[in-house]
């Protein structure tokens, strides 16, 4: 579903954010990208979203080489990839319903489709009774649920999450992770950058450890702590 082949990203000024990274992520997998701040987790997410171009290497998303994708085709890539960020990225002047519907408006779906589909996904994230509220009227956890609902409303095959629980308390984080787990069970591939130990340990999914832009570890049913220990041993 996602393939990175010798991907390197060097920013202006020489900062190496990704260094010869190769990864293969299968359809339906749930993959954690873990590592300290500055290890390159977010950069990898952005590269997979073509938010930035690679310096070297190739990235395939859903069978397409996105490193050679012309700029005008980038929106089409993003429509097949849901994204969830730490800061929710909701439109402040739109209600919960409008925020979620926006992802479908972009696709040009008719209102007859948008209405029921939004209601369905709001039901899934447990916000059906808050559809008319604005983001500022919601708690952090609720805002993140809206963000998850927006990214999942058009049923993308892939979801990229960058620290989705970074601003949330542990209990709320668990709620969000349950939601992502549920979405993953529908067959959606999820790649999530995090440094939330408890979540990684509890989920027991594939863990890719990063340090200085390099992959230091790639384990099935991994744990966060072991990743740190193994990095220290190296």
């Amino acid at each position, binding site marked *: 579903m996602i393939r990175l082949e010798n991907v390197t990203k060097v*920013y*202006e*000024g020489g*900062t190496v*954010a990704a260094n010869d990274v190769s990864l293969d992520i299968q359809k339906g997998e749930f993959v954690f990208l873990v590592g300290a*701040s*500055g*290890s*390159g987790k*977010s*950069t990898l997410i*952005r590269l997979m979203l*073509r*938010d*930035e*171009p690679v310096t070297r290497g190739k990235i395939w998303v859903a069978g397409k080489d996105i490193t050679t994708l012309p*700029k*005008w085709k980038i*929106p*089409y*890539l*993003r*429509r097949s990839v849901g*994204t969830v960020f730490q800061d929710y*990225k*909701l*439109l402040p*002047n739109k209600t919960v319903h409008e925020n979620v519907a*926006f*992802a479908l*408006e*972009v*696709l*040009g*779906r*008719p*209102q007859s489709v*948008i209405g029921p589909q939004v209601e369905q996904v709001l039901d899934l994230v447990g916000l059906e009774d808050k559809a008319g509220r604005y983001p500022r009227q919601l708690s952090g956890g609720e805002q993140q649920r809206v963000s998850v609902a*927006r*990214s999942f409303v058009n049923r993308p095959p892939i979801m990229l999450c*960058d*620290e989705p629980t970074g601003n949330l308390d542990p209990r709320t984080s668990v709620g969000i992770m349950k939601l992502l787990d549920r979405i993953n069970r529908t067959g959606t591939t999820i790649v999530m950058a995090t440094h939330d130990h408890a979540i990684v340990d509890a989920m027991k999914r594939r863990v890719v450890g990063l340090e200085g832009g390099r992959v230091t570890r790639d384990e099935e049913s991994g744990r966060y702590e072991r990743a740190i220990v193994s990095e220290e041993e190296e």
Partner: protein
Amino acid sequence: MSRVIFLFREAMVSLRRNLLVVFGAILAVFISLSLAFGALVVNEILRVNTLAWQEGVHVIAFLNDAGANGVPADAHDSLLSEVRAWDEVEDAFYVDKSKAWIEYLEIFKDQPELLEIDPSILPASIRIELKDIEFHSSVQFRLDQNALLVRQVSTAAESIEQLQNLSSILNVLGLGMAVVLGLSAMVLIANTIRLAIYARRDEVSIMKLVGASNWFIRVPFLLEGMIEGLVGAALAVFAVWLGTNNLARAGQDFSLFRLDVSDQFFFQWGLVFLLFGAAAGVLGSLLGLSRYLRDADDEGQNVPQGV
């Protein structure tokens, strides 16, 4: 269809959120197009009056009586045929002494003391309409050559020519003003749109994140500019129409100069100005968007937060 409604709704929301800046842009379009449209209307008033004053007759040749003082009996007809054959002449017709008397009676009907004259002293004349007003001096010269028959040549052509020159100057001024002020309105709209984008930059980045194409992002801003241009132009056309109508009403008794302009003129040119306003709005928006979307397309090369 739902997409069109959505994009239109987005534009309206943006207009509502930036009321003060939008008002500034509309005012700029209104002022510039009012001045340009006003100049056009003044020009039209001059044109209408120029035509009305002469009713197509540019030169009058008053003739000596035929069959007397050596003037042959058929001299009037010969001269009329000759004049009609001249290249400079569009049309010419003959006014005999009896028609001249009728005309005289009509002109001086309110001044009975002037009516006590011998009608036979009124001369016959040839009324000439020129193909172009510029030809008046050459026609006058040709008529003057026939001193035996032509008693006097009268022409208002010089005044008409001066009016036409003024009209031409106004045309150039109006056009220049329309261009300069139209451009400034466009720049103001571009600025408005740039401010609107700046105010909504987070929103735009979220739009791109969920897969909105550049055109999907652009269209509401283009609509916004178009609406600003259209409203400004509509107000300008309405203001000039209102002003001219009031002026015409106030000057109804002022018989020397007609101040009214036909509704057809207002309709035709009003439409042109509305289109111009809308186009200026769209162009201004494109101008305002171009730099932003170019920057947005140049994907990040600097180290972002949270590498």
